[in-house]
């Protein structure tokens, strides 16, 4: 067959320049840093565990994004605020428990109560937002729910500002979670370990729910084809609410873990983690549950290791400032070069 030679477009050229500079940059930076040998193996490992625990949290939040997108094809921009509300409510419960002494006497039980409270609050917030802001717009053009979601996000943020004030808060100290632990020769802080373990457990539960339970199957059906599912007798509205609820539950748990990990609770705490979690969902392939999990872990690790690895070798000061850039650069690169992500389904784009 006669093959017509492809035209070189300006856009194509720009894309190739980007591809090459990314590859060159990564290789050059890594080589420069590693050959300098400034950070020890233990230091790198510390960054990796840090990234793993943060990534686990991103994964939990990303699951909320990916589930909702699979079912509604919309980006729930307000999901970061669902996460934030969970963190706040967990904080209040935690302080309440601390004042009754339960936090000290029965830390495990107290932690479970805190998690439950946060997950419940987040679930309620998520479902309420769906009901008020998204449901009336089910049939609207794509951009309309996105703009609504942005509005809902702003609204929730500043509601939290009005309700709880702008001060940065923290969780009460829990002795059980302080200090480091040595596991198989690896030094990791207890809270990081808890985060990773708890997130893994939740992800396993979620996977089970999606794959094995009836409502999970219904959700998958709706995400495959909404109209046919309705014809088959599935209550689409209910499935959607359930999806939001599940996403909310996970985000609430993430909120508590995040707050314990970083000891920082404020009304804008959901903005950056929300965007990064969405990046993770996109990276893993939007609509894919294992994709969101993997994407989250990857974003967490890239964020922690990336700036140091690529820039320390060039003596760039304050590499830490650029960690947020990593997530955004990954987002841009993934969407430009491989919008389906790692495990995504092509139809969803």
């Amino acid at each position: 067959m006669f093959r017509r030679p492809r035209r070189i477009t300006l856009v194509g050229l720009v894309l190739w320049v980007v591809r090459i500079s990314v590859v060159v940059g990564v290789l050059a930076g890594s080589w420069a840093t590693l050959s300098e040998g400034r950070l020890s193996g233990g230091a790198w490992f510390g960054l990796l565990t840090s990234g793993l625990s943060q990534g686990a949290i991103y994964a939990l939040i990303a699951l909320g994004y990916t589930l909702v997108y699979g079912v509604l094809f919309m980006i729930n921009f307000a999901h970061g605020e669902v996460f934030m509300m969970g963190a706040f409510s967990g904080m209040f419960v935690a302080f309440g428990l601390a004042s009754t002494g339960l936090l000290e006497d029965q830390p495990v039980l107290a932690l479970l109560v805190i998690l439950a409270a946060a997950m419940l609050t987040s679930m309620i917030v998520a479902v309420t937002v769906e009901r008020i802001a998204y449901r009336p717009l089910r049939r609207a053009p794509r951009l309309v729910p996105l703009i609504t979601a942005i509005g809902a996000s702003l609204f929730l943020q500043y509601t939290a500002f009005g309700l709880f004030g702008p001060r940065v808060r923290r969780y009460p100290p829990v002795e059980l979670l302080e200090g480091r632990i040595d596991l198989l020769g690896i030094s990791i802080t207890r809270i990081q370990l808890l985060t990773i373990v708890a997130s893994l457990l939740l992800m396993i539960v979620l996977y089970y729910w999606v794959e094995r339970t009836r409502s999970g199957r219904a959700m998958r059906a709706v995400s495959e084809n909404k109209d046919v599912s309705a014809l088959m007798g599935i209550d689409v509205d209910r499935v959607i609410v359930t999806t939001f609820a599940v996403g909310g539950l996970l985000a609430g748990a993430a909120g508590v873990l995040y707050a314990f990990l970083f000891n920082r609770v404020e009304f804008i705490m959901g903005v950056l983690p929300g965007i990064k979690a969405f990046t993770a969902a996109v990276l893993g392939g939007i609509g894919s549950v294992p994709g969101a999990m993997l994407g989250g872990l990857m974003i967490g690790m890239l964020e922690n290791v990336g700036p140091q690895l690529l820039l320390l070798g060039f003596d760039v000061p304050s590499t830490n400032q650029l960690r947020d850039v990593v997530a955004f650069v990954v987002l841009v690169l993934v969407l430009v070069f491989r919008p389906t992500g790692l495990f995504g389904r092509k139809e969803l784009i």
Partner: protein
Amino acid sequence: MVLALILAACQASASASPTESAAANGGEDPAAICAADEFGCVEVAAGDDILIGTALSITGGPANLGLDSQWGAEVAGNFKNDEGGVLGHQISWVHEDAGCAEAETGQTAAQSLVVNEQLVAVIGTSCSRTAVPAAPVLAGLGITLFSPANTSPTLTDPTSPEFAGEFYGRTAHNDLVQGAAVAKFACEQGFETAATVHDGSTYADNLRQVFEREFDEQCGGTITSQQAVAIGEVDMTAVLTTIAADSPDFLYYPIFHPEGTLLTAAAEGFPGLEDTQLGSSDGLLGDPNFLDGAGDASLGMVMSGPACAGDFYENTFLPAYSDVSGEDTPVSVFHCHAYDAANMIFATIEEVALEDADGTLFIPRTAFRDTLFATENYEGLTGILTCDENRDCADPDIRVSEIQEVDGELAWVVIWP
């Protein structure tokens, strides 16, 4: 003829004659003085209050910084009002929010303030970058801007584009002074290497730059790494990992709560930083949130800052501060500077104001400025204040305190000089 005489007599008694006013002011005539003054006078009628403005960062994230200064000034005002006010006039405040992160908000605050024509002076701003557009707006009307919290050297440096002009001065210390003091301390401790962390604010950035320069100049110290955390930063592991790779003798992070608190907490037991001395400055000094949040991790940490302590401070100022603010302890670090600034303003008014026979007070603006910035050896809460030729009035005496356990509680104890 008789009518004319009567009219003349009525005229004479109706208005205070210049000679009468002049007599009341020891031979000076207010009308003439005010006319001669480039920006005229503030007129405060008998029975009216003297208006002083504040332009501080009283909302949003840095609200504590601004509110703390505002309350400090208000305490001074309340004390003065209890004594009968300034020359018989009570002190009244106009508060505006000057913001912190963006320079525009300083401009807006200044524009809001100048709507009040009888403003004598403005205490502000909190963050140096908001003073840059605010000062010219106020100076254009002859209103003096007196800052309790700006520390950027550029504001009082005539060669800098950020020079705030001649109607600007401050009771807060210049970063040049504090950074040098910290470097001196570090050198005297025998530190050879140091790392710095700033938070993107000009305050922190300036301080650590001055420190780095002085550390090198004074004793040839080496800076192993310069790092930064963003305001809102949650994870300190990455920053600390990079710093710990070089195990510096001294880690200096002149930042605020909560970033400083989180950094301190994370640094405890961090591999590579076991022998590193942690240090900060008045961003964290005296902040109860820091002690709360960092707990025992803060033991042994040093902080520089002006001294503000003593019997009057503990037993008279602090209770009054609690009354005004509703807080148990001060929420930031510049309340003493604000208190001193307010009192210096009051003292200056008392010195330059002229009164006419009606009891109206006239405060010539340029004379007010000149007298305020000629203050020498004023005893304030922050020390002995003398305004230099660039209108930096702060006591250059910077102390370094260490966090120690005192009677079972964590407290700052002055250890240097």
